[in-house]
């Protein structure tokens, strides 16, 4: 008996099941118990588990990350939620200097089972300070895990794995995925951290994508199919640990690589994956790898500008077509029918 849940419902169910199973799990974050419940992901949890375990917090991101870390050191399993990744920047000291390093710098004494949920997104005027995809910052730091689910199924399984993991996990949720439904099994199940997923098998070019960009990569694969190119699409799911095997196995087969990331191109996750392939599978490459990621500028607010900021399936398909010396039809970059570019689908209305 299959059942579908939306991405946000899957996240809520993961937390619900973990809280029911383990009394040491608690959820804290600005707005967690409020009527909107972090876009629905924490709705009902306070009623079920009480305000001691499902709590709002002061606007003290850095200290609250330390509080969560301290409680984790003595056996609690906190989940901290930031409604925008940009707010978590205030907690970088505690995340990078303390939580990430605690286990190592004390020679294995002390563990920090901590999940830090951060919401990323695009469009609808999110602008310079409400939209940043800084996964490469976190992925740069030894001791952290960095997880980016794309499907509702993976969102639930990865969040359960993250809560049960004994390390600090940065869990990045893309706002444009929240309303997308998927088959989601009931009960506890785990999607392992550090395992990418081949979403669409193919033979001619490997499209490695993170988070929402995986959906754009799937659309690009459809375009490429129409041009006789069979693309393999990989949903990275975790940046750290990085599933090198799945990426290298695919590129060794296809000989071509396009990486699509929600973050900036310069010094970003996409460059890391290209470097991995260059170092370990260079001789298998048939053409120069390509990155499809954000241009080197802050996020503009106006849709008239942001329409030219966020890459889409067209850029991914164009990068792959170029590897085959194919023409790139202008129609690749047409706006999708029935929606503006600053919304995930026509049903979406602001505010975020």
């Amino acid at each position, binding site marked *: 008996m299959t059942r579908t849940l939306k991405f946000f419902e899957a996240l809520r169910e993961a937390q619900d099941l973990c809280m029911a199973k383990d009394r040491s799990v*608690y959820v804290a974050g600005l707005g967690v118990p409020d009527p909107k419940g972090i876009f629905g992901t924490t709705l009902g949890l306070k009623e079920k588990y009480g305000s*001691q*375990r499902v709590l709002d*917090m*002061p606007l*003290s991101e*850095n*200290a*609250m*990350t*330390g*509080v*969560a*870390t*301290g*409680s*984790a*050191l*003595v*056996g*609690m399993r906190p989940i901290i939620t930031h409604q925008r990744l940009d707010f978590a920047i205030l907690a970088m*000291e*505690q995340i990078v*200097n*303390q939580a990430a390093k*605690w*286990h*190592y*710098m*004390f*020679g*294995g*004494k*002390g*563990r*920090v*089972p901590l999940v830090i949920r951060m919401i990323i997104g695009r469009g609808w005027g999110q602008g310079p300070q409400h939209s940043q995809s800084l996964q490469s910052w976190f992925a740069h730091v*030894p*001791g952290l*895990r960095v997880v980016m689910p794309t499907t509702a199924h993976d969102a639930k399984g990865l969040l359960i794995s993250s809560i049960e*993991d*004994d*390390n600090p996990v940065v869990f990045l949720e893309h706002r444009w995925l929240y309303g997308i439904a998927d088959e989601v099994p009931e009960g506890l199940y785990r999607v392992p951290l550090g395992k990418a997923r081949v979403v669409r098998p193919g033979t001619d070019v490997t499209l490695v994508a993170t988070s929402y960009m995986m959906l754009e990569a799937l659309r690009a694969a459809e375009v490429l199919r129409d041009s006789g190119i069979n693309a393999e699409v990989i949903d990275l799911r975790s940046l750290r640990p990085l599933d090198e095997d799945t990426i290298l196995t695919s590129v060794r087969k296809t000989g071509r690589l396009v990486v699509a990331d929600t973050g900036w191109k310069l010094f970003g996750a996409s460059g890391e994956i290209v470097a991995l392939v260059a170092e370990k599978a260079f001789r298998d490459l048939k053409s120069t790898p390509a990155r499809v990621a954000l241009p080197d500028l802050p996020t503009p607010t106006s849709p008239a500008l942001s329409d030219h900021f966020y890459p889409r399936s067209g850029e991914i398909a164009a990068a792959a077509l170029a590897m085959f010396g194919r023409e790139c039809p202008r129609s690749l970059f047409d706006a999708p029918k029935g929606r503006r570019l600053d919304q995930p689908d026509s049903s979406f209305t602001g505010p975020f």
Partner: protein
Amino acid sequence: MTTGPALARTPSAAGDVALRLYRDMLRIRMVEERIAALYPEQEMRCPVHLCIGQEAVATGVCATLEPRDYAFSGHRSHGHYLAKGGDLKAMMAEIYCKATGCAGGKGGSMHLIDLDAGFLGSTPIVGSTIPIGVGTAFASAMRGEDRVSVVFFGDGAAEAGVFYESLNFAALKKLPVIFVCENNLYSVYSPLAVRQPEGRSIAGIARAVGIDGAEGDGNDAEFVHRASVEAVRKARAGGGPSFLEFSTYRWREHCGPEFDNHIGYRTEQEYLEWKNQCPLERLRQKLLDGGKASRGSLDSMAQQLDVEIEAAVRFAKESPFPEPSDIGMHITAEARR
């Protein structure tokens, strides 16, 4: 048994408190003097921040705690670690960066830990263990455990944003945490006067946030002890956090074994005035005057400590360094289940 807690960790009989405080302070003083003497050998390959002159705060506070209580500190943490019952050999070995060190050589002097003693860690980003200590108190409160968390930090921490954030949350949730501020007037070479407005006490900031406590002479171990007894009592009774600010003075340089009064950031005169208020000498005189100890008994106490310290130094020096293969261990915690 030459290592282990300074004295029994059970509350001392009333008459023993002063003697215990003196012994704990003397132990810290002698350990650090030994570190200062050995440091020029260049075998301790990490920075050391000595607390000589400030021993009364660590001992006065920790003498009121149980092993089940938690303590955290910052870069100048030898005294807090030892007073809380941290293993001396493991600390010495850590300062010598050896595999037998309390952090396996991964931390050094600024990263001390002894879980059995309830010393949960010291880290050298000023102010950063304050929220972590609030976090252990939060866990204790959620679980209804009878534990007190103590965080030691200096005057500079009060300038960090996380200080306010942490106090606010502790006050909000009435957590069993004691904030212990050792105000030694300097952050490295920067005097308080260039960092905080004149006439405002750090304890005053805490009161404004909603946390009462005490402030006063941090070189009077018995005063520190009395203030801490009250704070611990309040925390255990569910009365919430306390803030203790103690005035004291670091005798030696900010980092390293030398004296640095000649380099121009403070005066020899100021140093001598504080040295004249030595916490050990003051209590020693009191013990002798009150007939609680004799010169002979205190000499013999020092001799015993010397034996313990020499054994710890020997242990540290003779211990092996970590294996090169240890470099990749403990980056992330492996699953236990």
